[in-house]
């Protein structure tokens, strides 16, 4: 297992380097960071533009810029200079990532749990009314735009709050500025927690939906395949209890491919998180990317893309390692 782990980790390093080159080139294609400065009226003195050019490394060649960017990143953890000279890109990315990670992690847990439960029931009761309605629902969720459903949930939350005259669901931001009359940081821990949970419910449902739809179909297919296999028939023939056959022999094997699929879908889920955050006005990665695009803050965008790429590569690695743990055939191959 150790050799397998080391091999997998070593393989991800060139991928990461390749990814950083690709991200750098894409960042360069996304626009000129000094565009707004150059178009400013009355015109900015030539000297100011030269200074900014120098500060943003734009007076150097692309390979030099890439080298400086990577050096700062690896040695100091800096993401390069922002167009707003006072901003720290690392700080902005860090706080945005915390907000988004909270949403994504909870949504994945909710979606995977529900997907396994309905997928397994659908497989056991194949062609039953439950199976047909679950299939139809997953098709429906799969065809439903995340932003539309999120906006619908948001409106539903507002309507509920108005009618019950309470603030059960938070619909703007990931927490309130004021809880009752006191500011968020002065409120008791219980109030803070309740507030955060209230703000998370609707975005989590919105984001879980697409993942749930895909994963429940996958669980069902994978479960059916295992249940029709010879070793499950053997387990039945041996006279094992059906619960034991189901959990120990079928489910455990059926879930192996699901880990890979879930980990590989993480890129799509990050995309969904961007949309959900936009609807619920969270200050997460989606909001940061949008402001980065508007300001043409190329190093911010590069950092953003690199972090997402790193997360995806990391999850691919985790999927590979988990696969190795769960399925001995892989690590000995």
């Amino acid at each position, binding site marked *: 297992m150790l050799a397998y782990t080391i091999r997998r980790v070593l393989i991800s390093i060139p991928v990461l380097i*390749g990814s950083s080159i690709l991200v750098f080139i894409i960042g360069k294609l996304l626009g000129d960071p000094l565009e707004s400065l150059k178009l400013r009226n009355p015109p900015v003195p030539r000297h100011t533009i030269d200074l900014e050019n120098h500060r943003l490394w734009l007076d150097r060649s692309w390979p030099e810029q890439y080298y400086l960017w990577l050096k700062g990143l690896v040695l100091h953890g800096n993401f390069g200079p922002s167009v707003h000279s006072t901003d720290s890109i690392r700080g902005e990315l860090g706080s945005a990532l915390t907000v988004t990670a909270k949403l994504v992690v909870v949504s994945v847990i909710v979606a995977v749990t529900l997907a396994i439960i309905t997928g397994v029931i659908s497989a056991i009761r194949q062609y039953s009314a439950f199976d047909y309605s679950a299939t139809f629902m997953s098709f*429906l969720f799969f065809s439903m735009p995340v*932003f539309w459903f999120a906006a619908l949930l948001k409106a539903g939350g507002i309507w509920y709050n108005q009618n019950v005259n309470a603030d059960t669901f938070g619909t703007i931001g990931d927490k309130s500025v004021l809880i009752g009359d006191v500011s968020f940081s002065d409120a008791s821990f219980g109030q803070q927690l309740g507030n955060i949970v209230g703000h998370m419910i609707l975005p989590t449902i919105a984001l879980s939906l697409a993942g749930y739809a895909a994963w429940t179909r996958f669980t069902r297919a994978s479960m059916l395949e295992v249940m029709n296999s010879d070793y499950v028939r053997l387990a039945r023939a041996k006279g094992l209890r059906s619960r034991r056959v189901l959990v120990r022999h079928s489910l455990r094997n059926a879930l192996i491919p699901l880990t890979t699929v879930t980990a590989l879908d993480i*890129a799509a889920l990050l995309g969904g998180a961007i*949309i959900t955050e936009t609807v619920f006005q969270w200050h997460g990665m989606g909001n940061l990317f949008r402001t980065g695009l508007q300001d043409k803050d190329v190093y911010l965008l590069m950092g953003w893309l690199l972090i997402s790429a790193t997360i995806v590569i990391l999850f691919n690695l985790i999927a590979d390692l988990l696969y190795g743990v769960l399925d001995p055939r892989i690590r000995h191959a």
Partner: protein
Amino acid sequence: MPEPSNTAPTTTVTAPETPGVQPGQVEREFTVRERSQWQQAGRRFLRHRLAVGSLSIFLLLVVFAFLGPLVWKYKYTTITPDNSVGPRLGHPFGTDNLGHDLFAEVMRGLQQSIKVALLIAVLATTVGALWGVFSGFYKGLVDASLMRFADLLLTIPQLALAAGLANHFGGTWWIIGIILGGLSAPYVARVVRGMVLSLREREFIEAARALGASDMRLMLVHLVPNAMAVVIVNATLLVAGGVLGETALSFFGFGIQSPDTSLGLLVSAGQGAVLTRPWLFYFPGLFIILFALSVNFIGDGLRDALDPQQTRQRR
């Protein structure tokens, strides 16, 4: 489902004593007519009621989007004197606060979404299939470099990348189609490569090679058609995904730009009015769902029709 196979021996019974049959004519009552693989797939698809129903809804939506604007009395840019009215006879879907007729806007938006989605599917399928075939056929260094590049592209969230590129290169429908199509191509390439890797070892390829077929001929005449079933099913999924991608991009503000309109843009404009003027929010959204759902069901029917072996496990 037992399907009369085209390889089954045809039972031709010559029965001169049967009344109504001229002497010397072959009696056809017990014969099984030969059907090609595609004819069989077509018959299987037509038997799939949900898929056929979805296909008719899909065609109706296309007619609605492309012919509707020619006959409807308002254009999507027309500002009518009625502002903020609910659905009624003159305005089946109501109007917005400026007086735009939502029925006309939805038709235009659907038209733009369909155009983008089809472009995405065609582009991603063509590029991805060639990418995958080259990669799988040549193996070695070509394969490694082509597939590593695909892997790299897939590590970056598609929506973010598309938003950035669309923001820079402009928001007309074909640019968005090219961006999203190009970014979807690696998915198709992966699938096709997997198929080609196993197909290229089969005897019919060896036979074609022994007959002196060139690499190009092997790839385009022998490998691509054999991967076609999977590619077609994938293409329908790309159409559905394409509509969702385009509308999400437009909703996000980086897709199709006003004064033109798209279903995503309409939902974005209507999202603040869910409780006050719900028609502005529901109609564009329902058309996105209807379109994506019909395409997904068509894809499901096609998968069952084109790949009966897979069906036994999938359904």
